[in-house]
Every structure is written in structure tokens, then in C-alpha cells.
């Protein structure tokens, strides 16, 4: 028990700090490097950037089925929207997370009913399975997929799988909860250093192409 406590305290204490430091620091570092590169070599990008058209583009792409792409592959669209929504909602509104936050910082906010979050977790896991199946079964996606893509998928899926198993006391709760925290931390750390950094860059690439299409090309980009 003691050994669990000390491991738990470690992974939910210093390691969380470390993970956040690496995540935030790494993210800042990545974005900073990108901006430095633009300033050094591609200043012309500023000439063509437009807030209006950046937002026009982003607003279309964050709505399911608002683009030809989303409409063309509906299963993927539904899957990816649910998955990404789950990825954003769960860390902040899962009751256990809110309680932990309250214990640590003394304040909290509303949380979602446990039954609901449990269902969402399961759905997110199913989404990950669909992602996996796409990579295995669709010839075009399979051709593109390399080992790192599976690794990234595993990193993203792990917090949900471990959380689900922990919540349902599957085998050893202690084992799963530590793995859950660890996998969450791995995911945070992985964001700036793997393909998960699309989380950081997507807004910029979308804004840039949205600006080029809106301001210069007078055409839709969705």
C-alpha cells in the first residue's frame, strides 16, 4: 500500500508538474521556432495573413459536415469530431479530475455526470478503434501509415483505456490508475514532440491557407 502511495504521489505530484512544464515549454518552443523561421525566411506570409479569412476557414472546419471533406467521409468525420471533443472535454469535466483539482487548489467547477463521462470514454475508445481499423483496412490510409502513427494513436488512446479500466476496477485499480496518470502525462509530453503537435500547428496552417484562399484567391477553402 505504501509503495502504491509513494508511486501515486510521485506520478500525481512532481511528474504532473514535469509533464506540464515539458508540454507547455515544448509547445512554446515549437511555436517560437516556427515564428522565428517565418521571420527569417518567409516574411511574405504576414503580407497575406488575414484574421477575417483565418476565422472564416477555421469556423468551417470545426463544424462537422461543413466542408466537402467532412461530407465525403462521414464515418471519419463523426469519429474524429467525437474523439477530439472527448479529448478536450474529459480532462476538464470528469468529476474525478475536478475533485482532484479542488483538493490541490481549493476551487473547482461543475463536472459532468459519471455515467455520461463513462459512456463518452467508451465512445472515445471506440473512435480510437475506428482510427486503428482505418489504418489497417483502408488501402490509402494503410499506405500512408508508419509505426509512429500507431504509436501516436496508442498514446492518445491510452489515457482513456486506462481510465476506463480503472473506473471499472478491472483487475487492480491501483495499477490502472497509475498507468492512467502516467499515460496522460506521456500524452502531454508527446504533444510537442510527435505528430500530436498538429494540435499546436493546425490553427496556424489552417489560418494561413484560409488567408491565402480568402484574401488572395477569393475562393473557398472548404
Amino acid at each position, binding site marked *: 500500500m505504501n509503495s502504491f502511495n509513494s508511486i501515486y504521489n510521485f506520478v500525481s505530484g512532481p511528474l504532473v508538474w514535469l509533464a506540464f512544464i515539458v508540454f507547455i515549454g515544448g509547445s512554446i518552443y515549437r511555436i517560437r521556432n516556427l515564428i522565428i523561421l517565418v521571420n527569417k525566411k518567409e*516574411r*511574405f506570409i*504576414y*503580407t497575406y495573413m488575414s484574421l477575417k479569412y483565418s476565422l472564416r476557414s477555421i469556423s468551417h472546419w470545426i463544424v462537422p459536415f461543413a466542408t466537402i471533406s467532412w461530407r465525403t467521409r462521414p464515418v471519419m468525420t463523426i469519429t474524429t469530431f467525437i474523439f477530439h471533443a472527448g479529448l478536450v472535454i474529459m480532462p476538464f469535466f470528469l468529476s474525478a479530475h475536478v475533485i482532484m483539482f479542488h483538493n490541490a487548489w481549493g476551487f473547482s467547477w461543475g463536472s459532468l455526470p459519471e455515467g455520461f463521462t463513462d459512456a463518452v470514454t467508451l465512445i472515445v475508445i471506440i473512435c480510437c478503434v475506428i482510427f486503428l481499423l482505418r489504418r489497417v483496412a483502408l488501402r490509402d490510409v494503410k499506405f500512408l501509415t508508419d509505426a509512429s502513427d500507431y504509436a501516436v494513436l496508442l498514446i492518445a488512446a491510452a489515457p482513456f483505456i486506462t481510465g476506463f479500466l480503472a473506473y471499472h476496477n478491472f483487475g487492480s485499480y491501483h495499477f490502472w490508475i497509475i498507468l492512467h496518470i502516467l499515460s496522460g502525462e506521456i500524452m502531454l509530453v508527446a504533444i510537442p514532440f510527435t505528430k500530436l503537435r498538429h494540435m499546436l500547428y493546425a490553427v496556424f496552417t489552417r489560418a494561413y491557407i484560409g488567408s491565402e484562399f480568402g484574401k488572395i484567391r477569393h475562393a473557398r477553402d472548404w
Partner: protein
Amino acid sequence: MTDKTNWDWETKEKQISDLNEWKSSYNWVEEPYASPDGEKIAAIVNTDDMEFNVCENSKAWEIEEPFEKAYSLRYSPDGRLIVLAAADDEWKTVVDGKPWETIFDFLWDLRFSKDGKAIAVATQTDGEYCMAVNDVPWKDSYSFITCMTLSDDGKNSGSVVQTINLGQAEVFKFQKGAFSAAVNGVPWDTNFVNVWNMAFNADGSKLAAEVRLNLYDYTIAVDGKAWNSIYGCVWEPIFHPNTNSVIAPVKVKDGWTLAQDDNILWDSRFAQVWHQMVSRQSDKIAAIAATSYGKWTVAVDGKPWDITFGDMVTDAVFSPDGTQIACIGTDSGKYTICNDGKAWDIKCDMVWKPVFSPDGSKIAAKIDKNGKRTIAVNGKLWNKMCDEVWEPVFSPDGSKILCRSVEDGKYYRRVIPVSEF
């Protein structure tokens, strides 16, 4: 330079010709050209089906037979009237109604020496190409010429020439070099992958050109000898009129700058540098430059003006003493004149190259505003809005301006005191 002292600087206004009358005499009248001194106006006119002539001050040239084709009508700086014309598929350069003796299969690219005494054309006969100056064609001809040039004194002519024939899609032969430059028809000893825009020095004894050594290495060649350094790209070289050194824009690692005799001349780097110029009087070197993307200005001895224009800067010119520079700056499609970094308040639909008064105190320019043409001096518009005007000319003492204009179809020559602007 043309001597303007003998021109009529006294008569305030002359109506030289009524172009409306021309229009009733001919099937059609093409766009007119005014002589440098303003005393004459001329246009190509159609007299009958496939028959053309040149009409000057209401009077058609007396020619043996009408031209079947005629184009490129221009006045030389010394006031002669030239047209390139054809009859029976034989092309001739016709000067003041008199054809040159030499006949060609085609003529184009009419150009003049500074004083206008030399007239040069590019020529083609039986698929062979050369230049001809004052009715004398080069001895040698080539399968291809381009980028023709004439020295300021008109004594030397040059062009890019193809020295090795290329079959269809012989890309690797091309990449070994099949082009050179020829001076008065004589090619350099060296071939290059490409040769472009070239310039003679002041006395016409040296020729510099842009060259490409392979698909991606650029440099400048002077009299056939390439500089040692290789650049990412280069633009047209010029000779320093006082030192005979060659100055060219070159692209180096961190941007564009100027090089002089293969040494980097300016410490500053730009997004673009071209149309460099040197003042013989002040030795200043200036160029049109972009400080960054879409920010155009003039850089003098490497230092850009503070003012920048979004669209472009063109037609930069030194004042006669070389202390000032004027240019055209364009922002959001509106044109204005900029003098030493200060732009005129007026915004126009088009502006022609600014003209300095002899003492440099005034700048005049032809402008287009709302589809009408007029002249502006130091930012102030002339009170007449005309159908057409030609570029203003200052009197030798700088007190008057020659205004050549067409109003209601009538061509006027006016001499207007600068003070009236």
C-alpha cells in the same frame, strides 16, 4: 544630349495641326507622335486597302509607293521621323520619308543613340538575324538574336546571339552553352547557357552582360569573361561612367544587393534590387529596392529611403547635379512622384518618368488623371486637362516648360513659364 537652345522658347502657343482633319482625309489615323521640339506631329495613316503612309503636320510623306505595313513610328532625339515599313514583304527603315537602301525580311526593335545620330534596328533575312546601324548591317548574322543594345554614342551595337544550333529538345546540349554576346556582329569567345541584358561602357569599348553558367549559377561577364563569384541570380549590369567599373544587382545568401567588379558593394540586403544607376556628377549609386516584401523604395549608396510603396517603384532618375533622385511610386494602384523620399500629394492613374529642371529645383511629369492627360510640376497640376500630352521639356535656363498636347483633336505647342504652375 539634344541641343534645345535653338528651339522656339518664345512663342507662347501654336496650334500646329488639327488631327480631326487628318481623320477625314484618311481611312484611319493611328496614334500620333510629337517631335521632341514640339514643332511637328506625325502618325501612320491608312490611305487605302493595305496601303499606309506617314502623315506629318497634315502632310503625307511623298513616297514612291505606299507601305503595305508600317509600324514603330518614332521621332529620334534629334527630331528625325522614323518608321519601319514594308512593301512586297521587303522591310525598310524609312527616315523622314527616305528609305534605307538595305532591305530585310523583317525589322523591329528600333533604337537610337543618345543624340539620335545613330539609328539601330534588329533585322531578319532568310532566317538569319543581325542588327543594322545607320543602314549598315553586321557582317555576321545568327540564327537568333535578342536583348539588343546600342552604345550611348551609337558607335557600337550588341546583342545576345545563338552561336550553336540546337535541335528540338536538345536540353543537354543547351546546358553546355549555346549563347554568347556579339559586339558589332563579332561574338565573344565564350559561350554561356544564357546571356541577357547587356550594357556598353561610356566609350563603347566594353560590354557587360548577365550570364547563366548552368541551370542555377549566375554571374556577370565582361567582354566574354565571367566574374569569379557565383550568385543565386543577377540583373542587368551597368558601367560606372567615371571609373569604368561594372555594377550589377546580385542575389547572395541573405538577399539582393549590389556588386561592383565582383565585390559586394553594399552591406545592406534587400528583398529586391534593380535598375541601379550612377550619377556621373556626384558618383552616387542608387537603385530601386524592396526593403521587404511589397515595400518598394529607392536605396542610395545602400541606404533606403524611409518611404515605401506597396505596389512598385519605377523610373528613378538623378537630378542633373546628381544630388537628388526622383521616381514614380505606386500604392494601391495610384501613382505619384517621389523626390528624395518625399511623395507628392497628388495621386494619379498614371505617371510618366519625372523630368528635373536643369538646376534641379523643379520636377515635371506627364500624368493621367480620370482618363485625361496633363502635366504636373512639383506636385501642382497644369490647368488644362488634355486628350493627350507628351512628356514635358524644360527650357535650357529652366524658366519655361514646353507643353505638347492634343485638345479636342488639335495639336498645340505651348511654352509656359514655370511660375504659372
